[in-house]
């Protein structure tokens, strides 16, 4: 069996936030996103689709030693919505590393990292929170 993959340096990173990143929300970006997901809803691009905020990225806090676990899979997301996002908004994303866990899976030992990203608009309102799970694994054998 391999050694535990969560190192003390990784554990110290839990609770850390990445640098805030602010994005001006453009009609064209919403329209491109709606087209990419194949959603012809007439509400777009006057308002953003539910998962549009994924496109904002954000400076995910450093995970020391993550380079030893180069394979990454997205485990899922839970979105909580408060205020609609519209063209002209300035949305600031702040991702925080909430938790780390280790699990044996079909593909070997996996590191499960949970992030919470808060999205705030130019009025200081929390518009949405995304809680997402990243699954990291060692190199393919």
């Amino acid at each position, binding site marked *: 069996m391999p050694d535990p993959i969560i190192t003390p340096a990784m554990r110290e990173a839990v609770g850390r936030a990445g640098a805030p990143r602010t994005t001006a929300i453009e009609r064209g*970006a919403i329209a491109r996103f709606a087209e990419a997901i*194949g959603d012809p809803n007439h509400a777009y691009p006057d308002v953003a689709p539910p998962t549009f905020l994924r496109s904002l990225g954000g400076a995910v806090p450093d995970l020391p030693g993550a380079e030893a676990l180069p394979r990454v899979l997205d485990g899922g997301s839970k979105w909580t*919505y408060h205020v609609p996002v519209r063209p002209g908004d300035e949305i600031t994303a702040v991702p925080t590393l909430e938790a780390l866990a280790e699990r044996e899976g079909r593909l070997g030992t996996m590191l499960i990292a949970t992030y919470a990203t808060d999205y705030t608009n130019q009025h200081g309102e929390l518009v949405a929170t995304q809680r997402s799970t990243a699954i990291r694994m060692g190199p393919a054998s």
Partner: protein
Amino acid sequence: MSGQPHLEDVEVGQELPELLKQPTTRQLAMYAGASGDFYEIHYDRDFALAQGLEGVILHGALKSAFLGQLVTDWMGPEGTLRELSVRYREMDVPGGTLTCKGEVTGKDAGAGIVICAIWIENGAGVKTTTGRAVVALPSR
């Protein structure tokens, strides 16, 4: 049911109208560009094979977007999506048909919300993606 659903008309057990999606590698490239997720497993077959995958796979977040569409199509312009929770249980590949489904599993008339189980079935009928949506609906 078609048209704007109202709280009074929605009952537990009611199914949401199905949404069919036929993602292609072209759509994965479009989604990579629109979302900024350029991880190569979604468009570079050689890279995906070297990672131990059988080929390029869908972005999980694209599947979340499909389920978001399932719910927003159903709830209509007067509905409000409060929560969208999605877990990726199996990988999905381009070239097939995905069926997005949902069912009302709870209703809180006082709070004006309904809860739906939502999921995606692949061509073999396997639930590759599961989740939950919380929706506020208008009253009559």
